[in-house]
């Protein structure tokens, strides 16, 4: 077990390095850097001025070396300009250059400074991840149980009416992307002009103008059912359909297995056959899918958070990408890569516990 985890962690480290390098390379392409120079320095800089600004701020030289600097395995750049001001990667604005450390990359905890948010990357990341964490938690709590129940109910009697109804529902939701379902939900439940809200308001059933709130900005400070339900529903709906389809497929397959017949012919009641004999075996395949759903959620929150103006990871990613915030993007990519790899590790380990026959090697 331990050897397996260590080996996997090694593979993960290599994967993370490769992936972050790809992101580093793409965000540090010359046009991006030029844009950075003009936005940080002056929009009217000459090309020569841009080149010298880049030179002074350590954006020239081999991309590998700069990546190593960013990681913190190579000494950070230090430049002294003609005015005698010494700048460096590791030197703060009012720090004494002589006391500054030699290395300062992400390994040393220096994730850089966000040009958009005017805060350190770590601080902005922490804040947005916390916000997204609550959103994802709510989505998982809603999505997984609903999807599993739908999948199991549909799969236990293949071809029955229950199966057809639930399967249609899950196909429909998994065929509806978030930007469609989100808009529909808003129009239906959170618009003062259309959908349910005007009707309810005219009957006097709701105090405000709308049933749900169309924006989740207030949920940043205080989560309530009314400001959080729509973003959660938007993300969960898509996932429900997907996981339910997987669970149903796995459940129908398990229900045709011979050991289910054995259980039935032992006199076990149908309910017990499903709960005791089929369920654990049917959970093995969807478990991987559910764990894969976590990275997918990171992706899904981009649209939903923008739609509902919820300042989480997705919103931040969109803002950072739109404003050429290189260090922020790099920080976000590190978090995303680690997140994906860790969920996959958990998925593999959990699989072994669900399925006694599997031996990882």
């Amino acid at each position, binding site marked *: *077990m331990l*050897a*397996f985890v260590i080996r996997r962690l090694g593979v993960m480290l290599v994967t993370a390095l490769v992936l972050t390098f790809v992101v580093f390379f793409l965000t540090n392409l010359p046009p991006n850097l030029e844009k950075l120079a003009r936005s940080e320095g002056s929009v009217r800089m000459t090309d020569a001025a841009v080149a010298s600004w880049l030179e002074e701020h350590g954006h020239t030289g081999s991309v590998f070396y700069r990546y190593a600097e960013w990681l913190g395995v190579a000494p950070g750049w230090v430049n002294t300009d003609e005015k005698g001001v010494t700048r460096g990667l590791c030197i703060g604005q009012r720090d004494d250059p002589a006391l500054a450390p030699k290395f300062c990359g992400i390994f040393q905890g220096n994730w850089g400074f966000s040009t958009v948010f005017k805060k350190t990357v770590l601080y902005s990341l922490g804040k947005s991840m916390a916000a997204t964490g609550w959103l994802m938690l709510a989505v998982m709590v809603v999505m997984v149980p609903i999807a599993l129940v739908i999948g199991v109910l549909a799969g236990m009697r293949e071809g029955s009416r229950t199966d057809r109804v639930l399967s249609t529902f899950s196909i429909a939701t998994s065929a509806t992307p978030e930007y469609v379902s989100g808009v529909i939900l808003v129009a239906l439940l959170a618009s003062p002009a259309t959908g349910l809200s005007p009707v309810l308001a005219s009957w006097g059933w709701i105090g405000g103008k709308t049933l749900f709130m169309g924006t989740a900005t207030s949920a940043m400070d205080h989560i309530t059912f009314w400001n959080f339900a729509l973003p959660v529903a938007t993300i969960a709906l898509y996932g429900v359909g997907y996981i339910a389809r997987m669970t149903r497929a796995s459940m129908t397959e398990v229900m045709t297995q011979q*050991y289910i*017949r054995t*259980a039935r*012919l032992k006199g*076990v009641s149908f309910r017990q056959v499903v709960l005791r004999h089929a369920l*654990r*075996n049917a959970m093995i395949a969807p478990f991987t899918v559910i764990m894969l759903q976590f990275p997918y959620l990171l992706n899904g929150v981009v649209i939903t958070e923008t739609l509902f103006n919820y300042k989480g990871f997705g919103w931040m990613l969109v803002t950072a990408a739109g404003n050429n915030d290189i260090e922020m993007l790099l920080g976000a990519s590190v978090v995303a890569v680690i997140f994906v790899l860790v969920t996959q590790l958990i998925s593999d380990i959990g699989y072994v516990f669900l399925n006694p026959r599997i031996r990882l090697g």
Partner: protein
Amino acid sequence: MSNAVWDPSQPILEIENLSISFFTRLREIPAVMDFSCKVMAGEAMGLVGESGCGKSTVALGVMRDLGKNGQIVAGSIKFKGRDLVKMAEEELRHLRGSEIAMIYQEPMASLNPAMKIGAQLIEVPMIHQGMARVQAWALARQIVADVRLPDPDRILNAYPHQLSGGQQQRIVIAMALMSKPALLILDEPTTALDVTVEAGIVDLVKDLGQKYGTSMLFISHNLGLIMDVCDRLCVMYSGEAVETGAVAQVFDDMRHPYTQALFRSIPLPGADKNARPLISIPGNFPLPHERPKGCNFGPRCDYFQAGRCDAGDVAMADVPEGDRHASRCVKWDEIDWHAPPKARVVKEKAPIGKVVLQMDDLKKYYSVSGGAFGGGHAKVVKANETLSFNAHEGETLAIVGESGCGKSTFAKVLMGLETATSGTITLFDEQVQSTPIQQRSVDTVSSVQMVFQNPFDTLNPSMTVGRQIIRALEVFHIGTSDAERTDRMLELLDLVKLPRAFADRMPRQLSGGQKQRVGIARAFAGGAKVVVADEPVSALDVSVQAAVTDLLMDIQRQNKTTLLFISHDLSIVRYLSDRVLVMYLGHVVEMGSTDQVFQPPYHPYTEALLSAVPVADTKVIRKRIVLEGDIPSAMNPPSGCPFQTRCRWKSHVAGGLCDSTMPPVQTLAGGHQIKCHLGADVLAKMDPVITFAAE
């Protein structure tokens, strides 16, 4: 419960005129028609027939578990006087597992992989008797000990995949016995197991039947097994019972042509491939929706008489002198049942030529890692140990052994799918032991070919039969043009006695026996000199087995092919091989001509193997030697002699030599080799396992 009113002198199970159909979108497919049988208390009833004859459907019909499409369309199934057909689902549930229990063909698939053995066992009394968990656990422990499994506590806490096949089947039996059922249905309970393990299970089933007074419905395609276990039997063909009666009566005085044909197509001791070849049943099993009018067996029957046999439905007729003996044949009274078969053609024995294949000290080791997450020490599996033999042109060399003995590994090394760890393989003066198949010349590849065990999986399902054979010809660079290759392909179809029209068929349109013929045609496409046949007939029905083995023998006579026949079925080995090589845990324990191996002196393992094979002949007296325990793991072989853990002759060797030293190969008279410590005097005194009763 109704047990109180049931009279034990009445049948436990009485099936009357049962008809079961499966309904598809297209049509109704009758699976069982007009089936009747009676099982008395304590009686064991056998159901015999080939695949697709409806025997398993009868069993599932008794359990009322026919799936969504299956339905009982007529007749009644009375269990202790109560009609199961009219019973409500809830009432049925109380009967299942408590009064009627079932044992299945594949033990691994029948046990829940994610539940511990103990949890699966205690469920039965907890549901039916409302027993408390602790008591149920104690009962399970006792029953597990009853089915002769060692260390019950460990077994109860194990998952199914941690047990061997034989142990799993014992658990399935234990599960069936947990609430002492009145009727036990066994559906091919030993088909997936090795013969020596099968012998142990059969003994266990018989003993338990006597101990608990359980009635049994025993389903099998193996006539020998039926004779060992059952009192009465019912022969089924294409959905109908064709003959029923006491076992001895049906075996010795059969009154239905199908029963007779079945017995003539199985290799019994005394059959010989040249002097007394087997007679296969001509034609094919009719598909359920293509059954002929009148007698279903009519088109394949030697005694068929147009106008009578195909006139209308044939009813079961009682055979007067027998004990509840009945036959579904209009002519049973007219046929001379003792007349010898007409169609027997005596064939020439093929001459045996020079040595074409020589194995010398061949070894093949694999290394595997242990531990659930890949940790632990790497272990070495010694799949083949010091394999030395040679094979001659035109000879059939049988390689016999149970699963895990290394016979398939040896085939892989010979074919070049694996390379040898050490030793040499000389094939026509060329050493091939370390040349993988990708590096072998086309000549070498085409001269050594293989016929596989399972014809259903080894043909490409999306390519026509003809195309697959032509593909093989292309690979072997035979023929210069497509036309030439097409001609050669048609000749090959002739060789394997398939109509030329089959060239355009897809594999799914062929029956199992026909598919295997295509497999044989493909193997011989490049003019193979050495053919490795890995259990070529074990997946086929008995009536087809004879035809396919005969075909192999005919091709061998024509082409002087060397046939390496890998099998676990000793009856067929005795029938067709010239020399036999017995393997156990990677070692060759005995080698000699067929007569030498099948007659004493034996290697102790060969002796046990011979005695384990059920023989469907009432005149044969067989010594019962049941081996204790399972085959040891090749990963952790016993010290000294590989067979010492199960050997009953061990006490005849002085000084614990068996435990400590690998026995030497003794060469007896006539080049007969035995790898054993037993002295020549002990070997000489061995009794034959099979003797014929005086007629």
